[in-house]
């Protein structure tokens, strides 16, 4: 040691040196410590906020989709039930119609057959009547030996037929 300063004294060179030291420490702190650290903290905070916001958005989206699908599923179920019901009803209706038509067809066929039968019967009767009348005429001619006049003949036939009709 060369000597000592006063216990209470100001040394301008020391003061200047201390000022420089403080300014240097301040600048270094600002540039190398506080700015990057604060930036890092802010960045991280921002990233966390973004992530949370994204997560929340995704959750909401998922909930919305879930609701959508649920609704769709319910709709599909209802639709299928309705379709089944309709198909049933339609099948029933069709069956009934087919049945009805078949019955009607059958009835028509039967009726036609009956009519045919009646017609045939009438025709057959007429044929028989004609045959019988001509047969009777032949017999009568042979019996009487003479030709009856037209009017007589007709009268005779009618009479005969009436008898026949009564008989039949």
């Amino acid at each position, binding site marked *: *040691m060369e000597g000592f300063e006063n216990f209470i004294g100001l040394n301008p060179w020391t003061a200047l040196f201390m000022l420089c030291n403080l300014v240097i420490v301040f600048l270094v702190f600002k540039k190398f*410590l506080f700015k990057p650290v604060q930036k890092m903290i802010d960045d991280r905070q921002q990233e966390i906020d973004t992530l949370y916001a994204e997560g929340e958005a995704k959750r909401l989206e998922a909930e919305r989709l879930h609701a959508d699908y649920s609704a769709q599923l319910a709709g599909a179920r209802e639709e299928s039930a309705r379709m089944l019901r309709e198909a049933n009803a339609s099948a029933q209706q069709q069956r009934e119609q087919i049945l009805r038509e078949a019955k009607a067809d059958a009835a028509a066929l039967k009726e036609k057959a009956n009519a045919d039968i009646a017609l045939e019967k009438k025709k057959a009767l007429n044929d028989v009547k004609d045959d019988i009348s001509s047969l009777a005429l032949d017999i009568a001619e042979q019996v009487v030996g003479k030709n009856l006049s037209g009017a007589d003949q007709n009268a005779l036939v009618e009479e005969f037929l009436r008898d026949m009709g009564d008989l039949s």
Partner: protein
Amino acid sequence: MNITGPGIYFTIPILGGIRVTQTVVSALIVTLVLCIAAVKLGKNLTKRPGRMQVITEKGVTMITDLVVEAMGEHNRRWVPYLAALFLSSLLGSLIGMTGIFRSTTADLSTTATWAVMTSLICWYQSIKNFGLGAWLKGFTEPIAIMTPMNIVSEIAQPVSLAFRHFGNIAGGGVITTMIYWALAGASAALLRLIASSWIAVAAVLVLGGALLLIKKPKKLMGKALAIVMLALGVFGALQKLGLFESVPFLQVGIPAVLSLYFDCFSGLIQAFVFTLLSMIYISNACPPPEEAGK
């Protein structure tokens, strides 16, 4: 016992002699330590922090929160300056504990520079934020007759800041020096008394041994007393034999406890007080943006 200012290592013989004092050397070390630590801690920051980064971020956040709480959100830009002030002061005080270097804050040049720096910032900010006229007019308030008082208080502000910090740290050093001196004197006096006769030596040894071995004191004070008595006996005997002269054995222990207060506690408190007062002064000069317009 001699109480002096910082020692002068050598003088650079230019500009009327620049004296390189203990303060300058200590301050250089403090500045280097702070700058290297700042650069090292501020490097390689990642979004997923390691252990060191967590501590760094915690420290930065703590200081920032403290400043923002005391000064308001708009004064966030003062954080690095106040942190530099606080850590320079704290480390400057604590470096005295090494025993090799002198505390930078035990030199009035240091604390006065910092205090004037704070005042200059206040004045500059006041003029910037309120305008020169409004700032000068502020001295005449509440009444014109108060003007000299206001000027004195404005000057007293840095003076009190500087002397408070300097006084506490330097005073601590002075008291420590005095205690060492007093304890050396007490040791010498006690030893001279004991070494005057072998009977006294034997009596002290027996008393100390009996206290330690028979009574088996549970409390720290009892143990300390017994050990001091034994040491007194041993060193008394050695002095009587002419081997040692006035061993200052009382200097062991007591200064350590006092150092805890005068160096650690006082250094921390003074750094905190200095920074906090600087914060308050500067925040008075930098009101929130909406109030500055009034």
